[in-house]
């Protein structure tokens, strides 16, 4: 172990070291809101690999690159043929696989890493309430996912707005299309972040956490498939509840209607159960958040 004296001697030639001794801190101490904000921003940066190693940046930015590229391509095609290829909501929908993989990388990065390194006692011995830790991380992941989908939607909007032939009215119409799309992206973000973070918070091993997240989102798909071919119309129409991606899509179909699906398009059929889907989505998010908070209550006192 390097002794302080040797280290001081080593750095001495670059300048004279004045040991001014320990100084008490008299400055401001910020309250809970600021600490929460700092943790939230730190989490948001972490989700995209900022302040982390180059390795941690590769995957998030690969996903960001792909979704942006798709958005640019869609905007370019639209400007050529003058017809939208996909609505904003449909874009968010078709990117769902990438969102899942993004969650599988970002959620373990946000919570599993802290569990593994044992750094949590250092957080919980500080003033911030333990629920704040979990909520700040959740909010950071929600924001990251929303930016992941909303950013490219904005690209599509700009592409459409600059090539519209109807002047300011065309831009306004486009904006009215964009806003529901952004809301739908928000729904994706909230559902996937809450479930993904809960799964990741159960283990300190990042590989397990990532696998768990993917499993929860993908392994439930066969259930939907099975239910949707049962010889019961009700079972078919409620099948989407069994898996988070179809749950989100069902809620979207109910709320957005033809912004998401063409009228005569085949696919997920929810019948008159739209409100059930919406309620299920709310319950899923609330339940996952409550379990996440309970999980950290346990972690903090152990």
């Amino acid at each position: 172990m390097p002794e302080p004296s040797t280290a001081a001697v080593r750095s001495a030639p670059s300048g004279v070291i004045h040991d001014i001794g320990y100084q008490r801190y008299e400055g401001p101490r910020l309250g809970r809101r600021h600490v929460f904000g700092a943790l939230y921003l730190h989490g948001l940066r972490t989700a995209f690999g900022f302040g982390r190693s180059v390795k941690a940046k590769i995957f998030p930015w690969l996903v960001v690159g792909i979704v942006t590229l798709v958005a640019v391509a869609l905007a370019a095609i639209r400007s050529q043929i003058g017809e939208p290829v996909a609505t904003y909501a449909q874009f968010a929908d078709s990117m769902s696989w990438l969102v899942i993989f993004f969650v599988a990388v970002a959620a373990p990065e946000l919570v599993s890493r802290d569990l593994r390194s044992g750094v949590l006692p250092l957080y919980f011995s500080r003033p911030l309430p333990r629920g704040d830790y979990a909520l700040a991380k959740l909010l950071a992941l929600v924001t990251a996912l929303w930016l992941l989908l909303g950013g490219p939607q904005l690209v599509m909007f700009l592409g459409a707005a600059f090539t519209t032939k109807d002047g300011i009215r065309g831009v306004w119409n486009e904006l009215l299309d964009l806003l529901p799309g952004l809301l739908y992206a928000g729904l994706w973000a909230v559902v996937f972040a809450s479930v993904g973070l809960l799964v990741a918070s159960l283990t300190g091993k990042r590989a397990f956490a990532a696998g768990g997240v993917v499993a929860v989102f993908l392994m439930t798909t066969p259930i939907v498939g099975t239910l949707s071919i049962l010889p019961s119309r009700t079972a078919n129409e409620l099948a989407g509840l069994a898996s988070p991606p179809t749950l989100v899509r069902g809620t979207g179909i109910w709320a957005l209607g033809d912004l998401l699906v063409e009228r005569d398009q085949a696919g997920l059929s929810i019948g008159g159960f739209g409100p059930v889907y919406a309620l299920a989505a709310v319950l899923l998010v609330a339940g996952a958040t409550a379990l996440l908070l309970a999980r950290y209550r346990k972690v903090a006192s152990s």
Partner: protein
Amino acid sequence: MTLIATQSLTKTYGGRVTALADLTVAVEPGIIGLVGANGAGKSTLIKILLGLIAPTGGQVSVLGIDPTVDPAAVRARVGYMPEHDCLPPDLSAAELVTHLGRMSGLPRTAARERASEALRHVGLYEERYRPVGGYSTGMKQRVKLAQALVHDPDLLLLDEPTNGLDPAGRDAMLALVHRIGTEFGISVLVCSHLLGEVERICDTLVAIDGGRLLRADRIDAMTTATDVLAVEVSEGTEELAARLAALDLPVARDGRLLLVPLADDGTYDLILGAVADLDLPLHRLDQRRHRVAELFATRELTHA
């Protein structure tokens, strides 16, 4: 002001395992050594002081605040250094301590400044920009100490700060803790299962065993009362013992040694006078400080 006070503090886990039993203790600011064997309840006490777990019964106050009522107020003024590994290997010490400073409510620039100050005080300089994963155990312990200091607490809770260190590292860490307690004006509670270690640096010693208080007192009160003079003569030990007894000195035999409680400087003169009168060859006469451990010897505390 009382630094830490507990009143009949009890903690049982699941109604069966007793971690703390009816612990009543009050300590003044300074460096406090909390000693006890592994499993004596030291870590449980620290977690209660931080408000991380609630006691099953009894009262507790830290810096005059009840951590069961207002844990945030306690934690704002307390720095905690856990026993176990708690550093993310891929962050640098500077990044980690700055981040944790912000978590304690320091504004961005203040957090950065105080982080490098804290790291400097624990003896980390250029290496603070390297990832913690490559640090030696001694350096990691210093980072753990720095993060507890970054927000300028009034009280540090150090859980086994010398764990895993080699003898030189232990000495350096203890010297650092002593410096924090004396020069920085910050009270320190040092937990250790090694009595011989903490007794060197603390003013107050609290010994617990099986969740019960063995003894709590200022360390000078524990030692001065037990200072003795050890006298050894090459021959005529019996005669000297008789002579000293005749001088009203309570003499005890310990092998070839005669042990005489040191009342004041006059005791030296009496012994030297007696030796000279009997014309005995004096082999040695020295003051023997009772190790604090001997105060607990019957309770079989772990001792280095």
